[in-house]
Structure formats: structure tokens, C-alpha cells
């Protein structure tokens, strides 16, 4: 009687070497690092800014690098996101001389009178008299909306609803009016751009 030989065939246990094990760890680490760098690069690109300074009006600020700047209108300067589809998100900076008795509320009223004459459906949504700029300058913030119509009478452009956010501050005999304008549907999404702009603002 012969004793049968039992041959057991099984899966070979993977017994990675220490080097292999660490390789795996490093790959994961590199991947994570690349992801962080990519996110960082993306944020850097998206949030890249260009500095603006105007000695005459005493204003310095950083605005998104891809936005287009102009200073030919009735303002100190204006930057616009020309790549945006539809209404171009804008930041407009203007200054006005004020008297000793002028308050930010007076300026809000004057702006409202002017805009009511020129903007369709202009309506103030909220006035915040207790707003403070990042450098603790007291200001008045106004949120409003209106219907924007392109000026070309030939083209068939649909009006768009614009939401605006003004920050009005008075310092050293001069009022600074910072306006952030965006299509109402993307206003909240775009609002951080204005927050970063305010953080960089010096006047």
C-alpha cells in the first residue's frame, strides 16, 4: 500500500520587499503631492492678480490678472472678465469729493437717484450701514439689482439681470465707491473675487 503523495497547489503569497513597500508609499505620496500642486497651480492661475495703482486718486489694489482694465470712462478704473459668457463681471472703482457734512448715506442716495434715471428696473435690495472694510474702515454696503440692456440697437441681445454690490467709504475728504457687478445667476459664485479685491485695496 503506497501512501499517496499529496501535492497542494496554492496561490503564492506576495511577499513584497521593503523597497517595494516604500515604493508604493512614495507613489501615493507623489500622487497626492501632484494633486496638491495642481490644485495650487489652478488656484494660482485663477486667482492670479495684477496690481493697479493710481497716484492721483491714491488707490492701490490687485485685480484678477485675466480681466481687462480700462480707465477711459466716468470712473478711476474698471476691470471686466471678458471671457465670461453674457454680462461681463466687473469691478468699478470711482472717487468723489465730499464735504465735511457728507455721509455715506448721502452718497448712497445720490447714486440711487442717478441710477434710477439710467438703469432699467433699478432696485436696492439691502443697505448695510455697519459694513467694514478688511482694514476696519467703516463703510456702507449696498446690494442692488437692475436689468442690463446692451447698447447696440441693431443686435437682438436679451436683457440680463445684474446684481450689484457697492462699498462706499469716506476718507480724507474723498469718497471711494467700489462696485461689484455680476449676472445675478453667478453673483454669489463670483463674490469671492470682490472679497479678495477688497482685501488688497489700499486708499
Amino acid at each position, binding site marked *: 500500500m503506497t501512501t499517496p503523495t499529496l501535492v497542494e497547489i496554492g496561490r503564492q503569497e506576495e511577499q513584497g520587499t521593503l523597497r517595494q513597500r516604500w515604493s508604493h508609499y512614495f507613489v501615493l505620496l507623489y500622487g497626492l503631492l501632484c494633486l496638491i500642486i495642481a490644485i495650487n497651480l489652478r488656484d494660482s492661475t485663477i486667482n492670479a492678480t*495684477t496690481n493697479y495703482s493710481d497716484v492721483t486718486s491714491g488707490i492701490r489694489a490687485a485685480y484678477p*490678472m*485675466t*480681466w*481687462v*482694465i*480700462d*480707465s*477711459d*470712462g*466716468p470712473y478711476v478704473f474698471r476691470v471686466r472678465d*471678458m*471671457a*465670461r*459668457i*453674457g*454680462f*461681463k463681471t466687473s469691478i468699478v472703482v470711482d472717487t468723489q469729493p465730499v464735504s465735511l457734512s457728507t455721509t455715506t448715506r448721502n452718497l448712497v442716495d445720490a447714486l440711487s437717484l442717478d441710477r434710477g*434715471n*439710467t*438703469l*432699467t428696473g433699478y432696485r436696492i435690495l439691502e443697505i448695510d450701514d455697519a459694513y467694514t472694510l478688511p482694514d476696519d474702515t467703516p463703510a456702507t454696503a449696498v446690494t442692488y439689482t437692475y436689468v442690463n*440692456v*446692451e*447698447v*447696440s*440697437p*441693431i*443686435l*437682438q*441681445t*436679451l436683457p440680463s439681470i445684474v446684481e450689484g454690490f457697492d462699498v462706499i467709504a469716506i476718507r480724507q475728504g474723498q469718497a471711494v465707491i467700489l462696485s461689484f457687478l455680476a449676472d445675478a445667476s453667478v453673483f454669489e459664485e463670483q463674490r469671492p473675487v470682490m472679497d479678495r479685491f477688497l482685501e488688497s485695496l489700499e486708499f
Partner: protein
Amino acid sequence: MIRGARAVIVLVLCAALVGGVWAQDEQPTPATPVTSGIDLERIEQATVFILQAQNVGDNLNITCFSSGTIVSRDGLILTNAHSTVTGPNCPGETLIVALTVSPDAPPVPRYRAEIVQSNTGLDLALLRINREYDGRLIARDTLALPFVEVANPSTVNLDETVTIVGYPGVGNDPVAAETSTVVAFVAEPSAGARSWFKASRNVPATMSGGGAYNRSSQLIGIPTTAPIASSLPGATCVTLQDTNRDDLINSSDLCIPTGGTINMLRPSNYARPLIRAAQLGLQLENLSERPAALADTDTPDAPAFRRLFFAPSVNDDGMPSSVIRSLPAGSTSLYLFFDYENMTPNTVYELRVTTDGVPNQIFSLSPVRWSGGQRGMWYIGSSGQPLANGVYEFTLLADNIPLETARLSVGGAPPEGPQFTDVIFGLVDARGNISGNGYVLPTGNIANATFIYRNLANETPWAQIWYYRGREIARTETVWDDGASGAKNISIQDANGLLPGDYRLELYIEGRLSATADFTIAGAFQGVLPQAFLDAHFSSADSVQEAAAAPGVNSLSAGTETLYGVFDWQSFAPGMLWTLRWLVDGSVFYEQTQPWLLDQDGQNYVVRLSNPEGIPDGTYSFELLVGPVRLAQAQARVGIGQLPIDPFAQAEGIQMRGQILDAATNEGIAGVSFILISDLYSVADFLETRSMDQVFALAVTDREGRFQIDRSLAYDAPYSVVVIAEGYLPIQADGILIERDTPLPIDMTIYLSRG
């Protein structure tokens, strides 16, 4: 054609390199046929329909309408005064501007406008778009409208082809273009030998106020006719609304005068001063002017014409060379002279001419506004136009009422009878020297007249009659004894001095008027010209009183808001016509001829020029004239003494438009930015600075992805283009050259790929 497509090919190549596809439509389909090679599409877009309306309670009643033309990017509209300026026939105060959005559709009301300049006599008005249709104010610099350039009409020739554009009706009529030719130039004292262009084709009166264009697409004239008031016999009008709110549209409702047809074009150069003043924002106030004793709209007596006669030519001072009763065959020049009374700028006058009883459109004048004064001598005529043989009958009408008729025969040999011609005047001083400028003389004791005589026989009875302000003051009737031909001097004298004012001399041969001319005596005898206006100067002050006393200045700082023109006067009779003309950099921006309403002598006549935003830099001058003679002038420089250059003043050039489509869906993308970079910069320059200073023009697509560059491009300038839209691959291209033979307008299709 191949060379013309080069720009497009460059665009396609550049676009392909960056991932997009860009192509011009192979056969762009113009919305309207191109007439004689002119840019009809741009002209039609610049042609507007103007409604004058009156607020009655809560309703807006239409009171008048006309066509108009946009002549500047920021919304200046040139049109007729009779249909826009508030008056008895057009009592509305609101002006609504409807635009040609689609060439095949009726105009669409888009804006409201205000009158910024007008000349009721020339029947021209300049409007400025100042509000949206719903009443919201529009900032002047935000408008970028299609416009046309005003030509120099002195380059217009007889038989030149012109295209008349306007709205032919008040219903569903879209803008229309009619090709015509210039068949005659009509002369009048108000504007000289080319007061009117006469077109070969009659167009509907609703096209009045539109435009007539040369082959270069420039505005050369404004079709003009003034419909008579709907209350007058023979008037044509249309009732459009239930203006009395009785739920019926009938004869009780307001009937808007329409008129018949037009073949008269007011040359566009008469609009240039209005446009220039409006563009510069200048306002002129005549602070010393007294209100006229007779208001324009309150004439007690009906208009009247008298003393109709014909002359073969007219001299530079508007005087007839001689008086004729017939013209030889082959004549090409004829003028009808007449005296007029009780005319106002609101009077509509008309000349109807028949040749052997058949209406002659060439020499007739459509009903137009009166462009002269209240009384005086006038003429209508033309030169360079052959007259067919026959008997011509000229009938003058005022407010559609025939008033006077005169006849003239053309044909046969030149007349051989006795004739006086070419009367000119001078003043004889104590030494016997003659001074004065032909028709404007200084005060003195003797006025001298010189005239030419031909074919006179001795012993022929002749007479000279002198008039002062319409009243006969001297008459001499005698027989001729100076021989057959030559020049003769005659004179009138007054030991106490001839009074300042208007004079007339009539010369008769055998009881028939043979020559006549008017002259004016004004000012003191000093130098070649009479010194009627003294010490003309500019001054700068805070008030009129200070301006009168302030010393003269010839240089003012930039940004000056007010400038005064001051002068004294002497021996200038009330009622005499004088002209005040203002110029900037040598170009007229204000000119008005009016009767003198102040005393005969005086000081400190003050005229104020102002602009609340600052008078633009330039060299300003004002001139004081009597007839064509400039008697005084003053000049001052503001700022650098030269007008700034307007980069948007040029309408000529390339119109660019197109459509931006999604490459995957082939649907238009709304809200995409099409950035055209100036030829001084490249895409790289722009992307580095992202500054609008480098942008030549910017367009954003509409809901169908269509865009239109609102500024004309120059030929042979290497532009760059950036098309950016979030979610799509951008398109960038440098060195886009457009050559002169490129088919216009450029109509391109751009495909964007998602990325």
C-alpha cells in the same frame, strides 16, 4: 477678388492654428441690394424714422413724422425742422426715434431725442438721442450707433447719380432707397448758387428729412419739403389715431400733414455748423438782442409778393445784372426776382413753373419753408441748365395760395434793344474819391451809382428813381445823351448826409425797368469799408456786466466755460439786416442773419459762448457782416488753440460683423467677447497688459451669436483679434490686413470649440 479674400484667409489660418475655425461666408447676402456700389446697408441702418408726439393727459398723440439720418456715433440725428421743432403745424414736444433693425421691416421705436440745434429757415434740425424709449437717460458716450459722414456738396455735379434714402410711408413701409440724378442747382439769397439740388425723381414727402448720398456713401443733401397746414385748402394729411378718445377715427381727430412728393435736396453743408456746434456742446446766447416787434408766428398781414422780374444772372452780392423780358435760344441761366412782405420762417412757399402750359419740374420749387427775413428782395434761379424754347410762366405761392405770376419767353436771337446792366454803388468823399464795397457804403453826403449801358440812342427817354427804406426819395426823368454804349455815373446827394439804412435804385428806359439794385449805408467813413462795428473783442468774466467792462483777451486757459464776444456800433439803422458768424478753427458753427433791433448807435453788444463742461480747445472768432461784406472780427485762442481730434468721427471704412457659433452644435453663442486690437499692438501685447487702451473696438454677441463692430476699420492696418468665451478654446490672430478691394461689409462666421 482673390486679393480681397486675403484678409479672410489670414484669419482662417490664424484661427486654425489655435484650435478654432474661422471663415467668412462665401457669399454674404446683403439684406438690400447694393445701389451704385454705395454702402447701402450702413446708410439704411443710419436712417431713422422720427415721430413727434404730444402728451395729452395720459396719452401720446402723434403730431408729425419725418425721416432722419444719424450723423454721429453718439446719436446726433439730422432731419427737418418743420416736423420736429414745436410749432403751429407740429405742436408735439416729444420726439421718438425708430431705427432700422431689419432692412425689410418697419422701423422699431428705440429712443427719445431732443433738439440741440435748428434752423427753421433752412428747415434743418439736429436732434440728440438722450433717452431710452422708456424714458431712461442715456449717457452720451455709451452710444455707438451706425452713422454716415456729411460730404462737401461743392463736389456735386449736374447729372451725378444720387441715392435718396428714407421712409416712404407711415404704415408698414421699411426704409427705401431711390436712385436719382441731380438735374439742377437752385439759387436763393439765403445760401447762394447751390441753395438746393434738384433731383430727377420725385420721392414721397415722408422721406423728407432723410438723406441723399453720393457714390462714396456720404450725405450730400437732405430731401426737404414742408407740407402745408392741414387746415389750409389743398392740404394732404392722414389721421392715424383716435386723438379725441371718442372711440372713432374720423375728421374730428388730429390729421397729420403729409405733403405730396419731393425733388428738392437741401445741401448738407448747411447742416455742418449745426453739427459742429452740437458736437462741441457749444451754446450761443445773444444777450443784447431785443425781442422782435413782430413775432414769427404772429404775423398780422398775409404774405405778399410783388415786383416780379427776371434777370439773366446774379452777382456775388445777390443783385440782378439786368432786367429782361425774354431770353435768347440756348440760354442756360435764369433768375426770378421779387419783393416779399410778411413772410415768416413758418410760411411755406412754392414756385410752380410751366413751359407752354406744361408743368416744368426742372424749374419748379417744391413747397419749402421760407428761409429769408420778413421783408426784402429775393430771387430763385439756376445756372448751367439749358432752357428749352417756349413761354415760361412762373407762379409764386405762399401757404398753397397763388399770389403772383410772371411770364418770360425763351427763344430767338439775343435782344438788340437798349439796356442798362451791372449797377454798383460807391460813396463820393470831399475829394471826389469813390469808396464803399459796391453795395455797403459808409455814411456821407453823396452815394454814387455806376452802370453799363448798351444800344442806347440819344434822345431816348430814361429815368432814375431812388428809394430809401421802400419810400421814393428822388426821381430824375430825362432823355439820353451819352451815346450808344459805355459806363455812366449817377448819384444821389443830401447836404445833411444820407441816412443809414437800405436804399434802392431803379433805372428805366422808355418807362420799362431795365436795371435795379439795392445798397446799404451804415457806419462811419473810415478806410475802405464802412466802420459800423467797433472794438470787436473777446472777454472773460463772471457776468454780462463784467464782460462788457472787461479788457479784451486773445488767449484763455483750457477748460474755460464762458467766453464773451463784445462790440460797439455806430450809424446802423434799426431794421437793417446784419449777420453774426462764429467760427472755430476756421469752420463756421453759428451763423444768423437778422434785422438790427437796437438804437442806431451804442456800446457793448454782448454775445455769450458757453459750454458747462468747458469750451473745447480751439481758435474761436466771430465776424460781423452786412450782406457778404465782413465789417469787423475778433479772435481768441482757448487752450492749445486747436480742436481735439475725434477718433470716432470717421464713418468711411470697413464695417465688420459676423456670427460666433459652437463648433459642435452649430448654434450661436450669446455673450461672447470679440476684441479687435489696435494696429499698434499685437495679441501678445494685449494679453500681457489686458488694457482697453490697446483695444480698437469691442463687440459682444447677441442671442444668436451675432456681433457687429461699432466702429469703421481702416484699410491696410494690421489689426489683431482675440475671441474669448469661458468654456471654449480662445481664438487669437495677429496681422489682419484688409485691402481696399475687399468686398464690404466683412461678414464672418467664427466657430468655437469647447475645451
